[in-house]
């Protein structure tokens, strides 16, 4: 991908490769991925399970664990307006402890399991604050906790509760509050609304959207559900087989996809008011990432290849092509020709 670092880049991922050693070889969960996240924007990384979105984020946080290994690439963090650059992957453990949560925090998937069942809610917050400010006073901390709980519209009384007293939606809100407690610049949210009801989901998305606007925080959403992020993300990165296959503004990518996989995803989402017969699944299953690829990774599921309009040349999918203003696609066939307009909305 063309890399002109703009003024407002906050995280730049360059050529990041993460390999996992598995029984029958090497599984490349993240394959020479490059992209940038800009200050104060909401980016959504979309992909099916196993597409490598969580791995990519563990790379950004330098949390890749054995048997995983970063085999190439850099992740650069630009703190306030590029005065300082930091290579996240080369931080010392001390630097890392200070960096994490203060600059980038995370809301983990499955809120049910992310809280310690024998700690009160407030103790989770104490722990986090004390790790960064060793001499923080209890009153100040309580003040701060009440404030962040207010952001997610929770009653301060929940501070005294244990996790099992709370519903799934409340736990998720506690985790969002926890991620805000040190005023981070970036929050990474891993499937923040999966396993929640539509009403709760809507409410949490609305909260996040308001927090993003109010505090000018950069948010990175990881999800498999396009519909969920379509109204709150500025930009979308679509991942497939460990690669980003399309990247651009939400309305461009979803409104007029320039990669057959994105188009397939958009066509597969059931919505409330469209023609019931029009939706179709992407047939086939995601590729086995332990193999050595000789063709485009999407070949076996790609309608363009099956129609004989593309030869699925592996080498040509190694770069991304500019397909419009600030948008890129990995499909060279569609990048070259005008794609048929599709009906991604009304």
């Amino acid at each position: 991908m063309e890399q002109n670092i703009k003024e407002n880049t906050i995280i730049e991922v360059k050529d990041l490769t993460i390999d996992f050693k598995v029984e029958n070889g090497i599984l490349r969960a993240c394959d020479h991925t490059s992209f940038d996240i800009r200050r104060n924007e909401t980016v959504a990384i979309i992909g099916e399970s196993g597409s490598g979105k969580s791995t990519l984020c563990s790379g950004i946080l330098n949390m890749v664990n054995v048997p995983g290994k970063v085999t190439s690439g850099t992740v650069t963090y630009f703190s306030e307006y590029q005065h300082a650059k930091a290579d996240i992957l080369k931080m010392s453990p001390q630097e890392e402890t200070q960096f994490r949560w203060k600059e980038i925090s995370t809301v983990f998937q499955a809120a049910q399991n992310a809280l310690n069942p024998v700690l009160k809610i407030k103790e989770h917050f104490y722990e986090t604050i004390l790790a960064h400010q060793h001499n923080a006073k209890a009153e100040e901390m309580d003040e701060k906790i009440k404030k962040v709980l207010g952001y997610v519209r929770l009653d301060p009384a929940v501070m005294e509760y244990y996790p099992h007293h709370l519903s799934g939606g409340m736990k998720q809100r506690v985790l969002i509050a926890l991620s805000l407690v040190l005023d981070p610049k970036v929050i990474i949210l891993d499937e923040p609304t999966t396993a929640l009801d539509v009403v709760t989901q809507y409410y949490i998305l609305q909260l996040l959207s308001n927090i993003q606007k109010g505090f000018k925080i950069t948010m990175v959403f990881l999800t498999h559900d396009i519909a969920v992020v379509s109204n709150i993300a500025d930009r979308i990165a679509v991942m497939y087989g460990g690669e980003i296959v399309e990247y651009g503004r939400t309305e461009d990518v979803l409104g007029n996809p320039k990669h057959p996989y994105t188009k397939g995803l958009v066509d597969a989402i059931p919505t409330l008011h469209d023609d019931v017969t029009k939706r179709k699944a992407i047939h086939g299953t995601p590729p086995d990432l332990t193999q050595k690829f000789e063709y485009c990774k999407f070949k076996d599921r790609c309608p363009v290849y099956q129609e004989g309009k593309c030869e699925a040349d592996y080498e040509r999918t190694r770069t991304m092509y500019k397909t419009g203003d600030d948008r890129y696609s990995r499909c060279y066939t569609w990048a070259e020709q005008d794609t048929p307009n599709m009906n991604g909305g009304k």
Partner: protein
Amino acid sequence: MELIKIEHLGISFDSRTKKKEKVKILQDINLSIEEGEVIALVGESGCGKTTLGKTIVGLYPPSEGVISYKGKDITKLNKKEYMDYRLGVQMVHQDSFAALNPNRTIFQSLSMPLLQNHIAKNKKEAEDILREYFTEVGLTPPEQFLYKYPHQLSGGQRQRILLARALSVKPRVIVADEPVSMVDVSLRIALIDLMTRMNQKYRISFVYITHDLATARYVAKDGRLAVMYLGRIVELNNIREAIDNPRHPYFKALIAAVPSDIGRGKSEMKDLPLRSLDMPSVNNPPTGCSFHTRCPYYQERCEKETPKLREFEGGMIACHFAEEIP
């Protein structure tokens, strides 16, 4: 023909905290399932939709009211009729991993009901039957799946196996409890299409339990939709009519919460028409209309009187002020 008829069904469980007290999970449910019909049951978690599904399959005995299968009360069936009922009404569970025994191969798990119920005389015959159904649900070639263990298969494949298991005993009704919620978006439509095909080919009735309205619309197509709230059905209508023109204030809020217009890009998120986010506890349900604590249109009457499910503009709705709500 009415396959299943539910009349004034109530289910109560023992209270966990207070002994001798009962918690009412379902109250006054009336629903009938016709042959070949698809009914979608929607509602938030904790509204009782799974309990209703399990009661239809016969896993919970009704505390009040009657469920009849082919016109007979299911608690008063003789042994033969009961077997017929249990085979005729099958369930597909939400968590496909938990629904298959991890220590058995797929064939071991799936041949059991066939042999037990004398649908197949021996293992050879059972294998033939299963091959046929595996091909039907798109698991080809079947031998690739029959002798595998559940952990060797993907979520979508396991979900298909559960469907094949339910189909293999030639049921009349399948209760599908969130069958696609744990499957990737790109594969959901394929599973939904599969259910539609089974519905049309074998005239199997489906009860599709979900909290995802968009997929409910795809599964039910021309069927009916029942919206549940705190153990009661609050709206029941033809699914297209219900979604295009929701009438109950709760259902209006549900519809508003579903993301729409995905090609539009970033946009403002309006407040939902609800007074509070959290659903009241079933241990201590509100008096009168159970929705009044969250309803933006509530009036004094709602706190005192429980609305009955009544006919309104061609559908059924449980709201005192259906006529006045815009």
